[in-house]
């Protein structure tokens, strides 16, 4: 479980995160949603430690990140997997080498075991075998996301972060990627945090949703609670499209 308590973050005069507190539960897909510029990416990067927060606590199962030394942070990061918006696969390596990279750096197992583990991760994300030796630039965006997920789970992390996992994907592929993230969260009992503004994803896999508005946590609940939420900003954000307005009408 990851707990965020009274987190504040400023960039110069810009107060981006204002006293944000939240709990992200284990074995569930936790989602941070909000409009562009609301502070959700800063929140996620602060939780991972890519941004140093001004005040507050970020606890990974009781271990407070801001109190940790660099060496401790590096140990913690071996328990973290991350799926980036643009996949962030290493251009100079093949698909298989990308998945093997964290294993080679940290697993300390034999080459055969590393290959076996990498292959099992690639099979888990249903990547066709013929693509294993291709470069990331030679496969589609959806396949790149699968490789990135396989790389993220290679070391069986306790915490998985996904930054806009559906960015640039068609609706069908987005759905497959969402389901995949949801399934592996359950399978490995990970604490998964997804940063998204894709309402299809939210409605599909959002077990716990945190809505960030102007740097503050404005609402918290599940996907079923959204239809009955009375938060005006949340309603403006979620039901911006005609389709979702109709869905809400039908639900209420």
């Amino acid at each position, binding site marked *: 479980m990851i707990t965020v308590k009274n987190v504040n973050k400023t960039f110069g005069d810009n107060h981006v995160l204002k006293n944000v507190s939240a709990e992200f539960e284990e074995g569930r897909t936790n989602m941070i949603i909000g409009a562009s510029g609301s502070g959700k990416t800063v929140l996620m990067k602060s939780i*991972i430690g*890519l941004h140093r927060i001004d005040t507050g606590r970020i606890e990974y199962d009781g271990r407070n990140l801001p109190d940790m030394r660099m060496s401790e*942070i*590096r*140990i*913690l*990061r*071996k328990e*973290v*997997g*991350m799926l*980036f*918006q*643009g996949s*962030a*696969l*290493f*251009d100079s390596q093949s698909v298989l080498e990308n998945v093997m*990279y*964290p294993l*080679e*750096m*940290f697993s300390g197992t034999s080459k055969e075991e590393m290959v076996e583990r990498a292959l099992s991760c690639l099979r888990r994300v249903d990547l066709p075998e013929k693509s294993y030796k291709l470069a990331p630039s030679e496969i589609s965006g959806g396949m790149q996301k699968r490789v990135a997920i396989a790389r993220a789970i290679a070391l069986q992390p306790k915490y998985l*972060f996904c930054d806009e996992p559906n960015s640039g994907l068609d609706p069908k592929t987005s759905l497959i990627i969402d389901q995949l993230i949801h399934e592996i969260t359950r399978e490995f009992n990970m604490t998964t945090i997804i940063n998204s503004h894709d309402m299809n994803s939210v409605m599909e896999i959002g077990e716990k949703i945190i809505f960030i508005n102007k740097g503050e946590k404005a609402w918290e609940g599940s996907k079923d609670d959204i239809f009955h939420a009375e938060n005006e900003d949340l309603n403006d954000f979620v039901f911006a499209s005609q389709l979702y307005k109709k869905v809400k009408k039908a639900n209420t």
Partner: protein
Amino acid sequence: MKIIHETGKYVLLMKRVLVQPDRWKMFFRQFPKELEKLGLNSMPIVIIISVFIGAIMTIQTKLNTENPLLPTYSTGLVTRDTLLLEFSSTILCLILAGKIGSNIASEIGTMRITEQIDALEIMGVNSANYLILPKVIAFVVMMPFLVIFSMAIGLVGGYAVGLFSDIISTADYLLGIQYAFIPYYVFYSIFKSIFFAFIIASVASYYGYYAYGGALDVGKASTNAVVNSSILILFFNILITNIMLN
């Protein structure tokens, strides 16, 4: 103020770069690739530039020093010393700052803007050390070979002038390049070039590593890397020359 800030940032980055790699195996996997990319692949440009500069230097020296009082071997001597003292170290490094500097800055800069460096950091890898150290060491190792190669090819270029034209006789040229040879000049040139190689690789890596934004910003980082490493080379050239030859 900005220069102090940038220098501090550069020093802090180097502090992260110049440490023992997390995995030597990964370092030695990357190192030969960098030797090839930064060193061997620079050979063609070194050959082309050195042979032509050697030839043109011989022609210019001969045509502009027509004086019966000057010994006939002086053209070869001037060509040799110019190559040894400045061309094959400083000028070659300025040219390589363009080729290698932009290559390193754009490669690392692209990794930065496509979040590949963030991915390494999230995995707990010292990304600065993993990405930059093999490049710096590979270029520093290859540079003396490039310099010696450039000296030799430059002298061959001058010899070709004697061979294929009547501007200078090959006998006079050969006498000139052997006359009053000071081996220390070769050491001085190699020492300088090693220092410049470190500047080129580390400054270019610095600009690439801290690139942000999009493709346009990677281009800017690449330009800054070339311009600033060239300025530093010229500055340290004066300093080192003063210390080592004065």
